[in-house]
């Protein structure tokens, strides 16, 4: 219980910081909406649905990347990450709390982005929405760990996409597959497996990312 209360306290802190500073969510929202508008005009009239679904995932992955790049910014200022690392709680709670907060940000963005996609292109099926939710877990688990690794570097803006995008490819494959395939269950299962494997790996390795 104490582990979960640490996670809750850390996630609540991130939500409070975002509500106060408002420097990540508005940027993510503007980015995803403007990207969808650009794609709406860029995609030729009569283009098939598969192409549109692919563009949705491009928009979502890059929007997530924008949020992940800012994820550890409050900890960089004032050295707060060292304060958390010194605390006696399990260090993986820091990663889990941050991942939970990033998940909430991403879900809030998608609450606007998915209806906007339906407006510009075509409505999403339930399987596609489930695919987005499952992919969010993977994006947050892997992205938060990689963002923590990149945060320690001076070239963090460069390193994060280089590390994150290759690992996001399976999520895009699973997400697009769950949207357009005749057998979306296979792709949803694939996304679930990705989430489970990478969440365990990230949970176990965070300690080493924040330790010298």
């Amino acid at each position, binding site marked *: 219980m*104490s582990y979960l*209360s*640490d996670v809750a*306290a*850390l996630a609540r*802190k991130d939500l*409070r*910081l975002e509500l*106060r*500073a408002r420097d990540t969510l508005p940027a993510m929202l503007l980015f995803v909406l403007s990207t969808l508008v650009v794609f709406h005009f860029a995609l030729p009239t009569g283009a098939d649905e598969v192409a549109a679904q692919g563009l949705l995932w491009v928009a979502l992955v890059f929007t997530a990347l924008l949020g992940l790049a800012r994820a550890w910014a*409050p900890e960089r*200022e*004032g*050295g*707060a990450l*060292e*304060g*958390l*690392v*010194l*605390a*006696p*709680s399990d260090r993986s709670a820091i990663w889990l709390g941050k991942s939970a907060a990033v998940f909430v940000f991403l879900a809030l963005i998608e609450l606007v982005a998915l209806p906007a996609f339906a407006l510009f292109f075509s409505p999403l099926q339930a399987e596609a929405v489930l695919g987005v939710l499952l992919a969010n877990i993977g994006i947050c688990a892997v992205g938060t760990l990689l963002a923590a690794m990149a945060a320690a570097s001076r070239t963090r803006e460069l390193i994060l996409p280089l590390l994150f995008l290759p690992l996001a490819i399976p999520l895009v494959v699973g997400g697009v597959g769950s949207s357009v395939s005749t057998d979306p269950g296979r792709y949803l299962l694939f996304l679930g497996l990705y989430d489970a494997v990478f969440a365990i790996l990230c949970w176990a390795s965070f300690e080493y990312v924040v*330790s*010298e």
Partner: protein
Amino acid sequence: MIQARAVEKRYGRRRALRPLDLRLERGGFLVVTGANGSGKTTLLRLVAGLAAPTGGELDVGADRGGLGYLGHEPLLYRDLTAVENLDLYGRLYRVPERRERIGMLLERYGLWEVRAERVSSYSRGMTQRLALCRALLHEPELLVLDEPYTALDGEGAELLDRQLAELAGTATVLLTTHDPGRVEPLATSRLALA
């Protein structure tokens, strides 16, 4: 409480701390002095567990929950208030009667009136006072303070003097300073790094 044998730290080819032997008993008060770049901060970061030695052995007889650390950075969230910062750390350190303890520290360090303001609006000295509150919040058995008088005004420095005098003999203190005379009466041992 702290025992080091030939402990050293290198970053690549650069030596940040020369091999050092050190022994500090429980309840001791060690004052570390030395020129800039002599390794004072590195030594404190090693003791706090924020860095790992590249040579020698270092035993610290306090776990993370029993260690209070004040470094060059305040380790605070700039967009949270003083109370929110201390409440977060109080939860993570499982501080009993957290609110009372936070209130007492803020009152003592003259931050009660600004407790609901964001840390980003604080002066450097006020931030340092709050960082001290954070380091003391869980009543650590080992207190590691890196130049704690930095940015404190006369009143703040006197508050810290009184706090250290209260802690002397009960908690173990490891402190670096460029003004060793200030804590000389409390010191049980001294270390000058070259």
